[in-house]
């Protein structure tokens, strides 16, 4: 009987370790094939994508697809973005270690975790309380102490911690809330993805330069630039 228990324990431990190994190797493949191969060169971003266990941020039913090259549903009509989009959005705001970053639309919490690997502090707002709670729980379990999660209407930003060096808006709408523009530092960058949940094709970068606010449409596409054949 004792031998049987010992055997079972070894088997369970082996399974856990195997699973962990599998996720790690999937993560490495993701970074190499989906991120590096598509031109992401920001070292800190790549390291962050390598470190953050994406599979912890998706529902258990989706775990085997966690490192696939696509977005995944996380409930409440929301999705966790495709890994490349997360990497691109991180790189494009050029995060530095001293940065204070605001995220609107916590969702799964994955983007916040990636940012938290790089910057000093991340403030993330999620309007759906259940999602905010789940994300906060996962972030806490992974010891991302520099991430603060709030369940609130992201329209108002997070004034008490403004201004922000960068703002990542994942829950985009037909307008960019004026309070967010106000809370962006001069020279700061705001990034907003544009597109249907499963088809994000376009990213918008907003830069504040004094009184002027400049927007730039970026096209990661699939991700070959869409050019006409000659």
């Amino acid at each position: 009987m004792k031998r049987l228990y010992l055997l079972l324990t070894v088997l369970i431990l082996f399974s856990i370790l195997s699973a962990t190994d599998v996720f790690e190797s999937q993560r490495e493949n993701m970074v190499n094939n989906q991120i590096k191969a598509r031109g992401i060169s920001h070292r800190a971003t790549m390291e962050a994508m390598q470190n953050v266990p994406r599979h912890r941020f998706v529902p258990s039913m989706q775990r085997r697809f966690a490192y696939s090259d696509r977005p995944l549903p996380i409930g409440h009509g929301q999705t966790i973005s495709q890994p490349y989009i997360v990497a691109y959005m991180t790189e494009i705001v050029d995060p530095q270690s001293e940065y204070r970053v605001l995220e609107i639309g916590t969702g799964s919490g994955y983007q916040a975790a990636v940012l938290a690997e790089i910057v000093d502090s991340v403030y993330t707002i999620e309007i759906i309380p259940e999602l905010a709670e789940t994300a906060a729980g996962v972030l806490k379990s992974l010891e991302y102490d520099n991430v603060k999660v709030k369940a609130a209407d992201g329209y108002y930003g997070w004034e008490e911690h403004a201004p922000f060096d960068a703002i990542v808006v994942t829950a985009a709408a037909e307008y960019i809330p004026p309070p967010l523009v106000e809370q962006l530092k001069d020279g700061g960058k705001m990034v907003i993805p544009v597109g249907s949940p499963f088809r994000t094709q376009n990213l918008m970068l907003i830069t504040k330069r004094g009184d002027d606010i400049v927007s730039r449409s970026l096209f990661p596409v699939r991700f070959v630039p869409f050019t006409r054949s000659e």
Partner: protein
Amino acid sequence: MSSLDKTHPFQLISIGLLSAAIIAFQLVLMTLFSNTQWYHFASMVISVALLGFGASGTFLTIFRSFLLDNSRRVITLSMLACSLFMALSVTLSQLDPIRFDSFLIFSEQQHVFKLIATYLVLFIPFFFGGLAIGVSFARDVKNIGTLYFANLLGSGIGGILVLGLFWHFYPASLPIVIAILPLIAALIFIMRKLDTFIMIPIIFVAIVILVLFINPPETKTSEFKSISQVLQLPDAEIKHEQPTPFGLIQVVSAPALRYAPGLSLQYRGDIPIEDVVFSDGEWFGPIIFLQDSNSAHIYDYSTIGLPYRMNAHQNVLVLDAGTGDNIAHALSNRIPNISAIEPNATIPRILNSKYPQSSVYLREEVSLHQMHNYTYLLSAEDKYDLIVMPTLDAFGGTSGLYALQERYYLTLEAFEQMWDLVDEDGMICISTWMDYPVRYPLRILSTFTELLDRQNISDYQSHIAAIRSWGMVSFVLKKTPLTDSDVTSIRNFASEMNFDPLQLPDIQPEERTQYNQMEDESFFTYFDLLMSGQGDDFIRDYEFNIAPTSENRPYFSQFIRLDKLSQLRTYFSDHSLPFLELGYIIILVTLLQVSIVAIILIILPLLTRRWGGSHKIWTLFYFGALGIGFMFIEIVFIQRFVLYFGNPIYAATAVISSILIFSGLGSFTTSYFIAARKSIMNVCFIIITFAILYSIFLTPILKLTINTPILIKLLLTIILIGPISFAMGMPFPFGLRLLNRHNPTNICWAWGINGCLSVISAVLATVIAVEFGFIAVMIIAALMYAIAHISTSLSYSKF
């Protein structure tokens, strides 16, 4: 066959009731799936479900002897099964293992299996309904004319009936209500001699219907539909709800709901919180609460505000007014006369009754015309100095859900009408979200340049202005050349709001990207090509179809070119491509799907060893051609008469019911004629002649009489639809009677072929209309009847 089995009025009534139920159920299912999923998935589901009809014919062919020997019980039990599964359709399709989410079909395999399971659930009532009708036809073919008449008349009445039901019942309850009809049909059918064996299932089905009626099932809307996401917001609630034939109208309020499309990044004020109207779970429009007359409207801080910054206007026409946001914008700019066009009568009614303090439709400056936009343009005589169109596409795109929505008011012909309606100094304004790859702005521009060509104006630069923000482009097309004052106003507006001029007579390249830059500036290259007058080559070569649309092909939001499909797959994955233009992709997949299943069902009986008989090829071609031809003509009529009457729901119902009633009468009169080769050939020739004449003259006749009173229009409709429909009701019963004389074993197979091809043709007609236009659909319908004519001439030369 006993005397009980001969055609009897009770039998005709029960066939009529069953037929009414089947048509009503079909329309209800489309509404149900439009409400919980998306309209195009509704078409997909319905097409497969209707294959139940085709399958019933195949089943009948294989088990003919047994089914006909027990026809009375088979018919009754089939009607009861149809009733039961109609009533249970919502309950079963909403079970967790079966309920699918259309948005996840392309990314999660389990939803594909769930979709298949949904097909099976919905297949069953159509199968049993088709079986009951098929057996009724097969056992009494010599009275097929009368039976087919009952079938068609019942179908026509079913269409009218469901229209009334839409106003009074929520979508989830409708199948239960409709299920009563086949139950009554079964009772009437066996009334002359009650059978104890049958009474038990009758009582059982009645109890099930009663229980479900008292406690109807709930439907769950896809979590990715707009309303599902909005209802997740804190304190979101549905304030008002109204089922209508247009869809389920719901008004939602939430403290976090705001709407300010393409708002300038320079705007520092508040964005008003608004209630929002949804139709079938999709965003319909915001209810703008009118500010005091001194407050600017939020649209003044978007590119949409462009025309009001150029000029003061007096008479404004607002097309597709919806919830009135553009009307409110005009009111805030102190426009004294506003004509608003909105075909959906429910929306103004809800606003007036639930928001009387702020409903724009109650303002004295506003005159509402409840009709189709294009119908108004064809019939209007007033002049306007500004025509405002609704904003196209949506932020983030609509995934091409509207690719198959006919938008007659965006066709070249519509813009020509608008050109005539604006006065000398007038302008037309249209805004669109920027999409990627670029399609909408380029199509608008190609339409404008083509319009100017038709007005013999080659100097596009002087008549077209456009500005661009971070997300939107707004165009102004002016009848007279833009003045220096216009250009200055546009530049000032753009500068103030951090917008960029996109097109001005003296535009400089660096102006275009001062505040809103683009990584890929090829958009400007394409834009300039179209403005240069050398756009034809570009339009021909571009990966998407951006040519102007027409009355014949009014699909403004449909851009995919089938010849470029493989190329697009290299840019967008198979996961992403469907969301580029979901509506059209779905229809293509549906066509493939139903074609495969239909072919299997048609081929299956041929593999039955015992099945013999002659004239198989004739049966296949004749009944297949009838199935396609009938449906194609019906679809073209619906499209044309919707424009004629200006109201899509009532027009479609009137047309469908007229076609079915007149063709029913035609079917009835076949009893007085010999079913012979010559009869068929003569009738087909009449239909071919009508179809060809209508392909040329129908639209001009309708346009010529569009301003006549409604009663004259109704009379004209009967005159135009009646005769051809009457003739269309004859070939099917003639054909079945011919078969009955020479090869009765083919009858069931004929029924199945006709059913299958009818299903395919409903989808095929849409694809043909998109690719080639409605005239092509009518011509092909004529061709189908020509096939019926020729095949009869060749196969039955001895008759």
